[in-house]
């Protein structure tokens, strides 16, 4: 019997190593798996590379992880969400490396990783300073740059419902990066608000099929309080 539901956070985090590349879902704090981030802090892995759209708000979630100084590098499109105090301080003192990636390129690099595509050409960023050092090629008279797939050792995602096969549904705009990150890592861990019986999810509504999900943790925390 397949059962991806784990009973403890320690079981969810088992095996995450120092030096891992970790994809973290969410846009701002909506869809950001804060309980899994807390579990990662508890696990104590260090020298991490984090891939996330933003860089954390105040001192919670992603910001709390950065504050442990176990993150070597962040791959991010917009590290300037409201109140990015922890990131700003680390960045100013040179304690964290930032790879600033256009948001669509970031999403597509992970989509490519999940689909077995090693690299692709895109017009985004061509002719700008974010294209520096990248191969440029012309197609039909327009300049494109080569971007490489972005794969994680681990993906931490937040979803709305899950069954024991790891099928996931999402809530409104909390879907954001979560489904694409789930496809792009060797180990995908989902925190979910609701666990339901196998067969209870409408197959038409499943946004992430269970094949992409390795572990599911039940975290019924209610409503997000900040954006």
């Amino acid at each position, binding site marked *: 019997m397949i059962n991806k539901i784990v009973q403890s956070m320690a079981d969810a985090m088992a095996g995450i190593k120092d030096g891992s590349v970790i994809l973290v879902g969410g*846009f*701002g704090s*909506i*869809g950001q798996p804060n309980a899994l981030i807390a579990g990662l802090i508890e696990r104590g892995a260090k020298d991490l590379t984090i891939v996330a*759209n933003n*860089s954390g708000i105040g001192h919670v979630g992603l910001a709390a992880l950065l504050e442990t100084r176990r993150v070597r590098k962040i791959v*991010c*499109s*917009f*590290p*300037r*969400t*409201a109140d990015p105090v922890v*990131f*700003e301080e680390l*960045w100013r003192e040179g304690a964290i490396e*930032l790879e*600033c*990636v*256009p*948001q*669509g*390129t970031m*999403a*597509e690099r*992970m*989509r490519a990783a999940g689909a077995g595509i090693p690299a692709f050409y*895109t*017009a*985004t*960023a*061509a*002719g*700008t*300073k*974010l294209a520096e050092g990248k191969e440029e090629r012309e197609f039909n008279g327009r*300049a494109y740059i080569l971007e490489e797939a972005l794969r994680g050792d681990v993906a931490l995602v937040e979803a709305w419902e899950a069954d024991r096969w790891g099928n996931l549904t*999402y*809530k*409104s*705009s*909390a*879907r*954001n*990066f*979560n*489904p*694409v990150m789930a496809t792009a890592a060797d180990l995908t861990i989902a925190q979910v608000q609701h666990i339901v019986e196998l067969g209870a999810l409408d197959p038409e509504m499943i*946004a992430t099929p269970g094949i992409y999900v390795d572990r599911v943790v039940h975290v019924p925390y209610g*409503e*997000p*309080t900040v*954006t």
Partner: protein
Amino acid sequence: MSVQAAYKPMTRREMAARLADDIPEGWYVNLGIGAPLQVADYVPEEREVVFQSENGVLGMGPAPAPDKINRWLINAGKQYITLRTGGSYMHHADSFALIRGGHLDLCVLGAFQVAENGDLANWSTSDNESAPAVGGAMDLASGTRNLWVIMDHTTKTGESRLVRRCTYPLTAVGCAKRVYTNLAVIDVTDEGFVVRDMVRGLTLKELQDVTDAPLHMAKQ
């Protein structure tokens, strides 16, 4: 003798309303964070224009009533929004495939500078003031069929934002099609900036005096 100008620059809200007048029914539109978002307030509900928010929302509606907030539903500016009837959700890779694949009819962005060749600079003013943060601006600017810019005509210190060549880091090359400023509506063409419309009482000479790049008058 008074040298007071005979014209009045538009307010941000007037600029948003002016731009909204030009959006035809049926267009799919992304509005950038900040001033561009106000454009939605001036498209009447009976003119069906579908707004996209790049965090995976197609059919974005206005802000919810305080007791009707869905706390999982925000826009790219991280404000609570509603979903219009007929709206849909998608994940980030699909949302940006929609943008990068040229499916939007229009994107409206703010800017620091627009050059007469259509180059846009809107994401960074210097190399080291704070951490670089591009968000979705480059994807939107290079992927959308029509990019309209909404911005003040000059900086607070009076420097022209319509320039021959951008001095700030580029967001995308040759992408801007039209600029809505507090003084005028200006097309970006192969011949450079072409003035379509000016605020009442403003002359082309007065507009040229505050504009770095040469202006041409649209043929009537």
